């Protein structure tokens, strides 16, 4: 028998740490042979904490939303294999189906293996792919297999992975930078990157897109998949050094990755002369310091070199001149996690999944107003409806679906009428949104689209590195306009001004951050122009989110005069006699909403 507890960041935050301890102590007290192990996130974050019990006859029982009180029941099941008091916590058939019907490639081991135990990974054909590469394939054949698979970069742009690998493989060895170049005055080199044929493999784990967390889940739940992917890439391009650039906000991921690297070294999967060949490779971790723009390749490289993370003009591409001017290949975590599967099963098997121009599967982080929030991996070619209403379980609290935001600050909002859009790089781009890294934020009727546009511009404005004038100042001006629209001071002509600025920022910015920064505004203008007009002309926010545009009034028929709202109002704006309908003085009202929260009779109307 065996028990596993889902302990990704999501599980831990839901209380899995306590459950884990209780189960460990409980099993010890029972004296049964039943190890309690840690697994990563299975993706069903809305069901955390999740406990799996693998019984003697090979049957797995899954308990969800486990509370400390439920532990006794689970232990009873462990002790007797009888239906127990924990039956109420067993996963529903529908939820189980949601997990089991997904097609998992990148997340194949997440939530199943113990990320801190390399044996678990090896037992599931781990490191078999790199062994196959080293022993039976030439680097060119590896790249050819990747070409067959059609895998596109999962960080956002979907650029063919094989192409980048091939470019890095064929890159001419870069001469050491001239000693009189200006960088030399401050950067002193330790010599490791002086080797003529030096090439780097860099893993971009700086998952900065607010609303996406698949990379965190992979590192926390299956770090070796990413490490093996990096190994294969290193073999293909001829690199001996890898770097993982990981967000400092992911402390658990860093700890698990450190452990995984250590175990891989001990087992001989990292280090010199791997599998008895002359192929050597090792990986180190570099913690990012918090800058969204560092997701851009050249900015990431600048950050790795200890500089401000500011993008530079391409070409030269990193494949030609990257980290320390050496050919470097950068892929993101999810991309690397797909690679071992492709090598083991063949590029054709991967290419058989998906659509004509988007192959394989894609992981989405389903969040926002969705019933079943978490990570899902679906084949390309499914529709947004399949994801939201299938695995996602529809909208929370029975409200109406309004839009889905895809691609984060670089992406856009896809409205309800386009819900049957197919998940495919091209089809999504046609809507004005992008696939992005896979953040899918679901919105219902209570989400104001102008406020969403303001939210994203606020983000890109703060995260603009400042290099290009249009991005630095243009996003600021757009934000100011959106703020005044949400604040009730929108003017006629603002929509045209926004569109004009948006076009100029797109034209005048060097990197993708600036070029795509206006997308959230452009897509909301395209699909929800009426909301902008309501804000500007009628001074109304139909989603009731923009507080300065709201009016709070008490419905006399519903008010019983309980005085709860009077006490809740910090500004003395509500008056009235006990047990008689009250009144809100509009001049004093700050529209904070405290009265609405306090009223138990739904007597306060917000329009």
């Amino acid at each position: 028998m065996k028990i596993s507890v889902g302990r990704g960041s999501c599980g831990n935050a839901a209380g899995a740490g306590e459950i884990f301890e209780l189960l460990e102590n409980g099993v010890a007290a029972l004296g049964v042979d039943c190890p309690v192990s840690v697994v990563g996130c299975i993706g069903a974050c809305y069901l955390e904490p999740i406990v799996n019990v693998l019984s003697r006859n090979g049957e797995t029982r899954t308990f969800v939303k486990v509370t400390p009180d439920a532990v006794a029941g689970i232990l009873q099941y462990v002790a007797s294999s009888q239906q127990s008091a924990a039956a109420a916590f067993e996963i529903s058939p529908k939820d189980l189906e949601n997990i089991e019907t997904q097609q998992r490639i990148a997340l194949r081991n997440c939530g199943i293996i113990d990320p801190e135990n390399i044996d678990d990974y090896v037992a599931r054909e781990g490191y078999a792919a790199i062994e196959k590469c080293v022993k039976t394939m030439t680097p060119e054949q590896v790249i050819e297999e990747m070409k067959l698979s059609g895998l596109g970069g999962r960080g956002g742009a979907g650029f063919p992975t094989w192409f980048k690998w091939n470019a890095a493989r064929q890159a001419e060895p870069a001469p050491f930078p001239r000693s009189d170049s200006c960088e030399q005055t401050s950067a002193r080199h330790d010599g490791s990157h002086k080797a003529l044929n030096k090439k780097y493999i860099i893993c971009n784990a700086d998952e900065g897109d607010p609303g996406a967390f698949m990379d965190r889940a992979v590192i926390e739940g299956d770090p070796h998949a990413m490490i093996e992917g990096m190994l294969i890439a290193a073999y293909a391009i001829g690199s001996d050094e890898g770097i993982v650039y990981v967000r400092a906000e992911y402390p658990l991921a860093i700890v698990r990755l450190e452990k995984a690297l250590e175990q891989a070294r001990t087992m001989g999967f990292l280090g010199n002369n791997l599998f008895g060949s002359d192929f050597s490779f090792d990986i180190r971790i570099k913690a990012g310091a918090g800058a969204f723009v560092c997701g851009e390749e050249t900015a990431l490289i600048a950050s790795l070199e200890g500089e401000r993370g500011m993008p530079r003009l391409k070409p030269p591409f990193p494949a030609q001149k990257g980290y320390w001017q050496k050919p470097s290949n950068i892929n993101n975590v999810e991309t690397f996690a797909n690679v071992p599967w492709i090598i083991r099963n063949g590029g054709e098997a991967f290419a058989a999944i998906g659509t004509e121009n988007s192959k394989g599967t894609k992981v989405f982080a389903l969040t926002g107003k969705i019933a079943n929030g978490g990570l899902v991996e679906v084949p390309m070619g499914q529709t947004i409806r399949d994801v939201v209403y299938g695995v996602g379980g529809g909208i929370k609290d029975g409200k109406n679906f309004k839009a889905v935001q895809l691609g984060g600050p670089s992406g856009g909002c896809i409205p309800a009428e386009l819900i049957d859009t197919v998940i495919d790089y091209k089809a999504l781009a046609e809507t004005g949104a992008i696939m992005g890294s896979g953040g899918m934020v679901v919105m219902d009727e209570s989400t104001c689209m102008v406020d969403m546009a303001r939210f994203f511009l606020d983000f890109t404005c703060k995260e603009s590195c400042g290099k290009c004038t249009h991005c630095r100042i243009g996003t600021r001006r757009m934000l100011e306009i959106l703020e005044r629209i949400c604040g009730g001071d929108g003017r006629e002509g603002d929509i045209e001004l926004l569109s004009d600025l948006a076009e100029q920022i797109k034209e005048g910015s060097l990197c993708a951050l600036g070029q795509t920064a206006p997308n959230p505004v452009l897509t909301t203008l395209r699909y929800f122009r009426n909301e902008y007009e309501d804000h500007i002309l009628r001074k109304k926010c139909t989603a009731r989110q923009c507080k300065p545009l709201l009016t709070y009034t008490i419905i006399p028929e519903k008010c019983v005069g309980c005085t709860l709202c009077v006490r809740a109002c910090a500004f003395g704006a509500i008056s009235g006699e006990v047990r008689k309908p009250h009144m809100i003085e509009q001049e004093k009202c700050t529209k904070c909403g405290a009265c609405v929260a306090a009223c138990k009779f739904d007597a306060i109307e917000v329009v």
Partner: protein
Amino acid sequence: MSCDCGNNLKISDSDIDVSLLEPTLVKYADVSGSLITILQKAQDLYGYLPADLLMYISRRIGVKPAKVMGVVSFYTQFRTKPAGKNLILLCQGTACHVNGSADIEDAIRECLKIEEGEISDDGLFTYNNVACLGCCSLAPAMMIGDKTYGNLTKKSTVEVLESIAKEES
């Protein structure tokens, strides 16, 4: 040509114990591209990056003060002002925004009587808004130390803060 401003600065004038940073400097001072790593270690040790310390680092690793400051001001992780004992990272990512992170910020402000970046009167808390903690399925979420708290409401936020304050007292 190298800049030698700051060479005359005596760190002993302030009450920073720079010897804490010595092992880090020994390890990284001659490894190019280590500025961010050194600054991260320094912030772990001192809680923030005082100007005197930055000058000292600049001198020790031979990177101009302006460049050090340029890097410090570029990345959101670095603080040049002290923070409370418990740093609250309040997620303002998309999912948290949609699920009402603004209300959670109100609750923190009201409970601790501080604005972003300030230290509460008891010295226990500072809060910062951050772009995304990557716990979107738990939105709204915040992180204190290495611990993440999810599915927050105004009430549960205050309860978390109160329980930490109680443990500290």
